[in-house]
């Protein structure tokens, strides 16, 4: 007799809340036609509930570890997993999405009746990436990846009047689907090589047996890495990012980039660390190569950009490289990766929120010249962007420094000292990139004189992002402790 799979609704509670919430937003809109700003609020409430649901998972997990409640952390036949890794990913993704609603508030309001669609897509995308991070089944990962990505493709083209927004959406969709296809092909080859889709089974299999001809498995693993490298904009799979992040509506770019990065890295690290850590000698070098390429290409290409959105996209490539430096350390690098992702994702949302405020929420493109003298026109925005950029540069006393330091340290410990040296050189180049923007804001004369409005949601987002940069820069210990235990099963 086949035992029925264990059902644990708590394990999918955040997904349920977000999925039903997305439907609720659409229904509420049809029924009551509320103001878009009310819908924004509703979306934040739904995200808050999802965060509570994730918190409940954490509470359940800690009680389970204490032996107070029974139940498997792998319910539904192992299709989803409740571990600290998934919970941290969930909370981070929800926080990014909530800040994304704040940063995009003006954009959603400008959409009028279509605001509900945009918000529903945002919620669905969040749920997709949460699923991606909270499963050890590669097929479920694919499902999460697609739910998350397809919503983002649509959002990228949400400014229908903007030709560049259309272009961004098409580009993102075509290249993204291509990457998903590569990912799923890789999953198939991994299955062919091991006979399983479950990373936990891969681990036990590889611990127990030596695969004599691992070529199929390794090719499959390589394709999985390539598919995920695309999502996290690691070079050489980054080419879409500058165009998409330049063309997509400014109000959506921040969470678009941050969600994909957090979800993608969560999946990448879980695949490599949980499933295939015993092959670290093989994939370590490949990932290190990706890291070098991303850091150098990203930093150097960012230098020549004249549009802040492209600049941030290229610097995002470099950041993907820095995070990959932590990935090469295997399971001992997971804590540092989380710290880095948490800090960077929120800084990214904050930085793109400033972009949206300066060049208009629905705009495409944001030339650097429009930031000249920003300190004079709107000191709050200039100050916020300065702090966020210094944080991204990894200047000490910002959390970006702790983040970089953590991944570099882990890479060094894993024997990748040369990678750390390359990374340090790349980060000096990236200083120059961010300094250019700061110079423009503080040391050049403004072009226009019209004052820029800072809406209340935007203010909240900026304050949160600054707090993450400065408070965690001065007092990083609590988050370091938290990330150090947010390990996969």
């Amino acid at each position, binding site marked *: 007799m086949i035992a029925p799979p264990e059902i644990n609704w708590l394990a999918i509670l955040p997904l349920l809340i977000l999925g039903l919430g997305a439907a609720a937003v659409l229904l509420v809109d049809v029924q009551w036609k509320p103001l878009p700003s009310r819908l924004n609020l509703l979306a934040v409430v739904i995200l808050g509930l999802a965060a509570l649901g994730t918190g409940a998972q954490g509470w359940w997990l800690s009680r389970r570890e204490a032996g107070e409640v029974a139940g498997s952390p792998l319910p539904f036949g192992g299709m989803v997993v409740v571990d600290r890794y998934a919970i941290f990913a969930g909370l981070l993704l929800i926080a990014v999405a909530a800040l994304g609603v704040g940063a995009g508030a003006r954009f959603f309001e400008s959409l009028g009746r279509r605001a509900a669609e945009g918000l529903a897509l945002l919620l669905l995308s969040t749920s997709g990436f949460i699923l991606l991070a909270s499963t050890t089944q590669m097929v479920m990962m694919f499902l999460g990846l697609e739910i998350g990505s397809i919503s983002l493709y649509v959002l990228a083209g949400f400014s229908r009047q903007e030709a560049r927004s259309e272009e961004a959406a098409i580009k993102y969709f075509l290249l993204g689907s291509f990457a998903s296809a590569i990912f799923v092909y890789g999953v198939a080859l991994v299955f062919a090589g091991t006979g399983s889709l479950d990373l936990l089974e891969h681990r036990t299999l590889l611990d127990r047996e030596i695969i004599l001809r691992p070529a199929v498995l390794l090719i499959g693993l390589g394709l999985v890495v390539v598919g995920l490298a695309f999502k996290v904009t690691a070079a050489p799979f980054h080419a879409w990012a500058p165009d998409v992040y330049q063309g997509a509506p400014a109000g959506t770019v921040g969470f678009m980039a941050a969600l994909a990065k957090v979800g993608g890295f969560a999946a990448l690290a879980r695949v490599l660390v949980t499933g295939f850590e015993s092959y670290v000698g093989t994939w370590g070098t490949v990932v290190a190569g990706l890291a070098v390429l991303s850091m150098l290409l990203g930093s150097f290409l960012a230098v020549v950009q004249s549009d802040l959105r492209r600049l941030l996209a290229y610097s995002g490539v470099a950041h993907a490289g820095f995070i990959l430096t932590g990935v090469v350390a295997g399971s001992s690098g997971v804590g540092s990766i989380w710290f880095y992702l948490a800090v960077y994702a929120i800084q990214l949302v904050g930085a793109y929120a400033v972009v949206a405020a300066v060049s208009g929420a629905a705009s495409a493109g944001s030339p650097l010249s429009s930031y000249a003298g920003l300190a004079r026109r709107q000191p709050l925005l200039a100050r916020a962007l300065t702090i966020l950029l210094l944080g991204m540069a990894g200047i000490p006393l910002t959390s970006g420094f702790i983040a970089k330091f953590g991944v570099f340290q882990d890479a060094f410990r894993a024997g990748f000292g040369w990678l750390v040296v390359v990374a*340090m050189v790349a980060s000096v180049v990236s200083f120059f990139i961010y300094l250019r923007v700061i110079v423009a804001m503080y040391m050049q004369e403004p072009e226009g004189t019209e004052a820029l409005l800072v809406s209340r949601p935007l203010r909240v987002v900026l304050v949160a992002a600054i707090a993450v940069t400065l408070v965690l820069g001065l007092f990083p210990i609590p988050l370091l402790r938290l990330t150090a235990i947010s390990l996969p099963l």
Partner: protein
Amino acid sequence: MLTALIVMPAVAALIVALIPRRRAELFLPIGVTVSMAPLALAGYLFIEFTAGEPGFQLVERTMLYAPWGFSWYLGVDGISLPLVILTALLVPISLAASVAITHRLKEFVMYTLLLEAGLIGVFLALDLLLFFVFFEAILIPMYFIIGIWGGERRIYAAVKFFLYTAFGSALMMAAIIALAVLTGRETGTPSFSYTDLLDLSMNQSTSRWLFAAFALAFAIKVPMFPLHTWLPDAHVEAPTAGSVLLAAVLLKLGTYGLVRFNLGLFPQASVDFVPIMAALAVIGIIYGAIVAIVQPDLKKLVAYSSVSHLGFIVLGTFALTSGGLAGGVVQNVNHGITTGALFLLVGMIYDRRHTKQIADFGGLQKVMPAYGAVFLFTIFASIGLPGLNGFIGEFMVLIGSFPSLPVHAIIAAAGVVLAAIYLLWAYERAFTGVPEKPENQKLLDLNLREKMLLAPLVLLMLIIGLYPKVLLDRVQPSAEAVLDRIEATTDYVAPAPGRLSQVLLIGEGE
């Protein structure tokens, strides 16, 4: 207490931040007043400090994050004490000298105070990660001070300053991580603590690479030839307060770091690197002096003179004798005092005439007798006239380096002569003769505020010059401790202390 010394300037910056923007007249007075608190505490530190003890004193140590081995670890010894006091003294002085700044004054005062917090932190930190945090964090306020309140080419200078130093410290960070990881492998617990890292055993190539990474960061900061090119730009463009702090304290981060970390952590590599470091130091002495001679810009002249003077400090440090090491530390302080004073003086004349070109002046001595007198006095101190502070340091360095590096010492001695040439020649052109230019004829002499700014520095030049014991009693034991460690861990034997009689005996061929 050491924590308070770091926190106090930061709190002072906060206090200034709370002053409403429209009360612009309050920023400077309040800034100067609040910066007196760290100065008072530094004075107290001087009293609390036990002279004659080589080790770290008033140590504070709290583990912050054990998995990394990162702790809040502060301590002061004879090498860092004078630099802490110098910093605390120069900040109120340079703030009070900044009356010419009217634009965004509040931020200026805040950045200066934050800079002070960072500088004191660098000198006190005994945890390498903590040290690095302060070392790097200093760049931000200094970057803004040059970039916002600087001269015409300020953006170029600020970015150049930032990138040069950031590049050096990037490799140092890799080296710091390497040290922590190596201790982790050796003892099982990673640590960034200076005292733990002293016990680390390294193979030769590792220690040489790490030495090189640290040395590069500090050599850029010093700056040593050929990495000095950021310095003239930064100095010329920086506002007076920026120049003073840059020359007097920021450059000392380099020489301090060489003594503390390069000599301290890599004794064998230090001995191995002596030829390179000493050669670069001597080149810097001569090159800086020769270039200074031909500078038409007074500020640039002082900037190049710094390159030359800091060469002496590096030479003394890498002579690896107790006299040279102690002389280097003493010269750190002396250069801070005299060059700080010179930049203040240049700033004062710039505020009046809005030019720094020597050719635009002439006969100033007649118009501004007090100014001329202080200027000449400072020049004498800088040249190393016996009885003034510069003499003590330079003489110790030369005497100290002669036994181990006689050729270098002899060439370096020529630097003293060149210093006399460029400084006195500049003085002659700017101050002597008849004031021919009409703009120069009605210049006002030093006012009371300016006299009060210069008085403590002039006083210190005299005190250290006449009674150097007050400094040496504190510096010498710590410097000797560094040397003792090198002798204990390597087969290097320092030549006998370079007493004058011995030097002369060698000269007679005995």
